[in-house]
């Protein structure tokens, strides 16, 4: 709670920056750039000119990968697909309203608003997802996690899958996209995330095989009422696993802009994961699997927990490395 209060002013600042130019009409953020008049009311600025100075400002604000950030913003402003915009921006220019947008977005990025929130969408595996303020932004490690799970189930029979904490829907929806024989149900504690996941499902045309419930998994109330007797073949989850202690070291993009409930895994990072274990005992079919993405110190711990506390109910199958060779994925089986 304390943390939330502390970070609020910063969030407001960026939001203010994001709207400042929108209302101010033709103020002259572009005066310092060389501007070419082509027709009377249409001012055109080459992108290469518009970029002037921004890389430096972003770096100063602590943003890494500035070129990539700028290219994402430019393609968003131009409403072009990222991979169709040339790296050297040859022959690409902004009109005056695009230029205003561009500078507004760069300012917001300097205030460390996540790039994915600024441009309102992000790519995850083969799908593009909308993003929304406070909803967790999918990470590249999770792509590797989902890739593994997809490989595991590529040839299987029909699969009834549950995802605990589906956020924007990234994991479930990319599974559904890749595997036509999967049906997925998500539960999610955040209202904003629940709505976003459903919107993404509809945008991707996957909503017929997807259901999402706004529900907070708690001890003895693991599932929403209507699913309390339901069992699944597969449960996946990327539960919050950041240790409370670690919060002070996180980047502003994460700690300021993402919902703390999406990140906070308690003192050892496994608080929510333990709830998922208990849920799996009840809601997995015998032989069904639970796949989790966790922090890299967690898999050995989970193995111990399985052996000590879940014997005869759950069995630790194996752990796997992400693309950076950090061991962070686990597979568990319902006995």
């Amino acid at each position: 709670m304390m943390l939330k209060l502390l970070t609020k002013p910063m969030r407001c600042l960026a939001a203010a920056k994001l709207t400042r130019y929108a209302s101010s009409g033709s103020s002259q953020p572009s005066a310092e750039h060389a501007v070419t008049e082509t027709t009377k009311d249409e001012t055109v600025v080459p992108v290469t000119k518009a970029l002037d100075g921004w890389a430096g400002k972003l770096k100063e604000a602590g943003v890494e990968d500035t070129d990539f950030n700028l290219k994402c913003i430019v393609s968003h402003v131009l409403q072009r697909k990222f991979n169709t915009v040339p790296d050297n921006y040859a022959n690409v220019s902004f009109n005056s309203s695009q230029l205003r947008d561009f500078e507004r977005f760069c300012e917001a990025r300097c205030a460390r608003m996540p790039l994915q929130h600024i441009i309102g969408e992000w790519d995850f595996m083969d799908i593009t997802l909308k993003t929304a303020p406070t909803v967790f932004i999918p990470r590249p490690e999770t792509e590797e996690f989902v890739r593994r799970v997809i490989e595991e189930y590529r040839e299987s029979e029909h699969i009834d899958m549950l995802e605990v904490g589906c956020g924007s829907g990234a994991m479930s929806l990319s599974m559904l996209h890749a595997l036509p024989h999967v049906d997925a149900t998500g539960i999610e504690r955040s209202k904003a995330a629940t709505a976003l996941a459903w919107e993404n499902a509809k945008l991707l045309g996957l909503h017929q095989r997807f259901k999402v419930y706004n529900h907070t998994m708690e001890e003895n109330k693991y599932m929403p009422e209507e699913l309390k007797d339901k069992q699944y073949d597969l449960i996946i989850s990327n539960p919050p696993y950041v240790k409370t202690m670690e919060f002070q070291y996180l980047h502003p993009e994460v700690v300021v802009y993402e919902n703390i409930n999406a990140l906070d895994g308690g003192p050892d990072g496994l608080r929510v994961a333990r709830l998922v274990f208990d849920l799996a005992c009840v809601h997995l079919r015998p032989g069904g699997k639970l796949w989790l993405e966790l922090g890299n110190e967690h898999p050995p711990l989970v193995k111990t927990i399985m052996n000590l506390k879940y014997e005869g109910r759950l069995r630790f199958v194996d752990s796997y490395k992400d693309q950076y060779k950090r061991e962070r994925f686990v597979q568990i089986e319902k006995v």
Partner: protein
Amino acid sequence: MFTHKLFNLRCRSLMRKYASQTSAAASSVRLENEKLQKYLENLRGEYYALRVNTAGNSHAYARMARLEGVVNALERQRALERNLTSKHDLDKETDEDMRKLMEEENEVYTDLIRKQEEVILQELLLLADDENYPAVIFEVNAGAGGQEAMLFAKELYEMYTNYFEHMGWDFEEYAYETTDIGGLRHANIMVNDSQAYMWLCNEAGVHRVQRVPATEKSGRMHTSTASITVIPRPADFQINIAEKDLKIETKRASGAGGQHVNTTDSAVRIVHLPTGLAVESQSERSQLKNRELALKRLQAKLLQQQLQSAESSKQATRKAQQGSLNRNEKIRTYNYVQDRVTDHRIQGGTLHNISGFLEGGDQLSRLIERLQLEQRKVKLASLIEMWQPPSDVNN
């Protein structure tokens, strides 16, 4: 097997269509040709010998299956010939009406025999196709002429991918490098179809375009080029990239990762340790997509490297394949001013309606069929020329 049948049918109708356009090279291939007769008789002998002895030997069985078409056609021909009434018998016939009837009958049979000869020739041509590859790597490269050449390369790329679809082939793009104004520097496509090589091999070479570029203000006509390379992938060929041989480099390699950070860079670079080949991709926002793209690029590079070295040694010994890998031969001109496409390798190789041609549908398909037929005739002629009757060998 079914496609093979279809293919045969197609060739036959083609054969009829172009029977009148026999080229110089093919004129040596006539059924009266004594050497050809010997060759046919030899194939027939081989076929019957195999039929008696093939039990369990799949190699021999395959050969027999290949010979079957020619031999059956030959037998039918012989049967027809037996129906002819000989000159001797005609002369012996005293009844005028009867003789007339016999003569008329002979005419009918002669006609049928001529047709059957064509069938035999066609079967022989098919037999001369000894290449059989499950897939090819098809490359488009912009050549001389700067941006204009790249725009042309892009048009060729579209034409051929349309053609692949027209033919119902499965294909996969490996590398695709575009330019800022929508041109194409280079593309690499794997076409997964055992018929692909046969039809595409004659497309390899330099394609030339003559037109006033869209970017040219003075209205001057330019000549630019793009080249096509067709590299067959032999059946036993495979690239296995072991995970341990790969070094995958991304920017986000230190720290806790996962939920702890939100760095956005998705660029991926892959080094193939055994060969030192390096590829990268940063054209997508998703890191996994970039990794997939980079891996495909690597695979294409490795394939290409290995195929080219394997192929160059083979080339020396394989006369039949000559030309298919020749990048420098100017094979076709696309002249916009006259709205024509001219293939320089065949007589009467000029077609009109460039835009129709570039759609990669029937027009291109028909030209490819013609080229294919010509090439086969040449091949058959040289095959028979080089063939030594077994008895000569013994001498």
